[in-house]
């Protein structure tokens, strides 16, 4: 509910043309989707936990991560405060 505008914007990133529009003018793009101040700030900071707190759903946030060129291990590292290598090592350790 509270994340609807943010999720709708992230869903729009399925389209390459929309991804380009966003990169060209991030403010205008966020404005067009009606993001609130908290969501706009979380997008500006590229901060996944803040995006989730602002109502972001990970299935759509993944598309924003794509725009940023981040994979799910980058996201995992950022959210857990670990380096990417440490995060990957922890995944490997889970298999032992």
């Amino acid at each position, binding site marked *: 509910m509270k994340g*609807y505008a943010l*999720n*709708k914007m*992230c*869903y729009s*990133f*399925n*389209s*390459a043309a929309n*991804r380009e529009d966003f990169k060209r003018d991030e403010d205008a793009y966020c404005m067009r989707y009606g993001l609130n101040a908290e969501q706009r700030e979380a997008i500006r900071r590229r901060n*996944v*936990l803040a995006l*989730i707190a602002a109502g972001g*759903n*990970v*299935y*759509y*946030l*993944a*598309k924003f*991560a*794509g*725009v940023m060129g981040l*994979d*799910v*291990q980058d*996201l*995992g590292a950022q*959210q*857990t405060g670990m380096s990417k290598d440490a*995060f*990957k090592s*922890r*995944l*490997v350790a*889970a*298999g032992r």
Partner: protein
Amino acid sequence: MARIVGAITTSHVPAIGKAIARNLHDDPYWKPLFDGYPPVRRWLAQARPDVAVVFYNDHGLNFFLDKMPTFAIGAAAQYRNDDEGWGIPTVPPFPGDQRLSWHLIERLVAEEFDVTTCQEMLVDHAFTIPMALLWPGRGAWPVRTVPVCINTVQHPLPSAVRCYKLGQAIGRAIESYPEDVRVVVIGTGGLSHQLDGERAGFINKAFDIEFMERLPGDPLWAARWSVPDLVKLAGTQGIELLMWLAARGALGGEAATVHSNYHIPISNTAAGLMLMERRTA
């Protein structure tokens, strides 16, 4: 009459699609995953299914939050893949089987599963990656398909029992189809993983192993938990085991594992694979 030849359950981690495109099958990171599939392909070559009924969860390609069906079933002549936003290569379209789709829909609604019917439907990596793993060769799909999409995006999600019962109803519907077609049921997703929040990277090997051991003979073992409990046990995305339960339900009756594989990690996920057949004894 139509016959279900078996059930296959497999992870659908997006990174697998990129690994296939880059031909990383023998790379040390990927080999333990890819090595799981040749026995299943050999089984498929023998079982010769005409149709695959695929339980999967859309990740925001076909459905958005504006309209989010709990259960949706394809009734299209063809299903296209498309850009998901983060760079996975797209694959050629999949042929549908509209007569079978409508037969399943008729029977499901008659059994009080009021599914959403989709005469146009994009299929995402959760559908395309398992297909590419089972029938490699970039797009000459040798089976017709019926996609069955289960919501895992917007809570509340359907319960484990409900997904199992949906599968059972689809199994009965397939077996009442008068045409002489051979059907393989596929459930995609899981196993334990979590992408979001402070618990990102969560994997539960003990739970996955027990789930895989129980699924053929005691499928309702996993149904003892609520969705929130399953999220705790398997992770926010590990809840995709709902698709495994639906596929197991469709297979019906007593079942046995013919082949399985399990490997940690693929991307952030514990990757699982099972091939099950009805036990006729």
